[in-house]
């Protein structure tokens, strides 16, 4: 049981990460990751939608027939995104001014429909909620890492405007890493997003390979030890 949940968590955050492993949702990804704060905001909004859509779709999985499942899933996701859009506009208005343009893009995030189809419609409610949370966190992680890399390279700051997102206590996060930095325009613009993402994907593969190799050597060492 707990093994299942560990599997879901590992899939969502790393092994089957929406961005790093599935390379999905690139449109919202590249559009908002000029800064780490924007990435964090977009990631959290997407996570909220994924949790709620996972829950609702899993709840209704008994009555939804395969023939009409796609329109029903799309309807549920679209309503959730609209609700997130409205509540952000009303209650975190400053962030909404920055991200407002991109919130409707969550609807176009194929990863949400993908999870609805491949997980929530086949699993129990709790597992689906957990899957939504983990997939969302994995996506948030990707957005924040990409946003931070682009922000440092592109404007020499980190978590600029974090206070808009999290409240004034978060202003300690706002760092100016490179004073008097002139900025590196290419990295801020969408092509820079592709470039940085490419390096991150390559980095993840290298890391995975190194880990696999280490595991393999450990395993052979163990079998050698136990055969003694």
């Amino acid at each position, binding site marked *: 049981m707990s093994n299942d949940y560990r599997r879901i968590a590992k899939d969502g955050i790393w092994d089957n990460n929406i961005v790093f492993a599935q390379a999905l949702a690139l449109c919202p990804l590249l559009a908002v990751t000029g800064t780490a704060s924007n990435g964090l905001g977009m990631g959290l909004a997407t996570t909220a939608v994924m949790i709620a859509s996972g829950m609702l779709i899993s709840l209704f999985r008994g009555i939804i027939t395969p023939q009409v499942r796609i329109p029903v899933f799309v*309807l549920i996701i679209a309503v959730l995104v609209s609700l997130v859009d*409205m509540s952000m506009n009303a209650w975190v208005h400053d962030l909404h001014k920055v991200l407002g343009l991109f919130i409707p893009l969550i609807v176009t995030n194929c990863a949400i429909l993908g999870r609805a189809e491949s997980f929530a419609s086949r699993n129990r409610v709790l597992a689906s909620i957990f899957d939504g949370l983990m997939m969302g966190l994995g996506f948030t992680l990707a957005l924040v890492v990409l946003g931070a890399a682009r922000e440092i390279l592109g404007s020499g700051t980190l978590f600029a405007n974090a206070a808009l997102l999290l409240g004034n206590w978060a202003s300690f996060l706002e760092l100016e890493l490179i004073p008097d930095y002139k900025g590196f325009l290419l990295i801020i613009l969408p092509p820079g997003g592709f470039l940085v993402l490419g390096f991150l994907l390559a980095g993840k593969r290298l890391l995975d390979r190194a880990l696999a190799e280490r595991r393999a050597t450990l395993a052979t060492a163990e079998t050698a030890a136990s055969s003694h």
Partner: protein
Amino acid sequence: MGTPQEPQYRKRIGYQAVLLGGFSTLATALLVAGNIATKDAIELRHKEDLLDSLAQVVPHERYDNDLLAHPLQIVDENGKPLSVYRGTVGSAVNALAYEISGQGYAGEIRLIMGLDAEGKILGVRVLSHAETPGLGDKIEVAKNDWILDFNGLSLGDPPEGEWAVKKDGGRFDQFSGATITPRGVVKAIKQGLAFFQIHRTELLNPPAETSETVAAKDQSL
């Protein structure tokens, strides 16, 4: 979902229709509820935004009324309706603010401009734009104080020919790597000042005459 033991009734077309209809109804109900819950807050936020930007172009000591209370509705030369926010002291109009827009490198640049009763610029700020970050976005006051150069200017000062960027023989700086953006802004401000010239009497008419009657007169013209 989709197991072989699926009950017969679920295969009927009527079931599918009712299912889809039911979900659509539910979705609509949720959206209506969400709209009701957030409508007032969103309206309030937009009002605060407007007040914020007005406060940047019209100094507080220039008026003692509620700027948002009775905006004057005027249809401009291009047939676009425009709200003019007027600050008064007593019954005299002492400051005005309205939105202007120009064509930038990447679409429309929306600005708000504040003027005193003589048509002198009190301040101009960018409300929204889609210019290139790092190049064209220097029109934002947060990035560069270029936009403050316009303070105190009016249509005759500098003379009309100099209302252009330096590259076009005018007096305003362009940015290295971005000429189209400041050109669009200068043109928009110039048009905004021309709008004041054309509608001067109407704009300075004390608000004792209510905005409705002015709007009615404007339409009969």
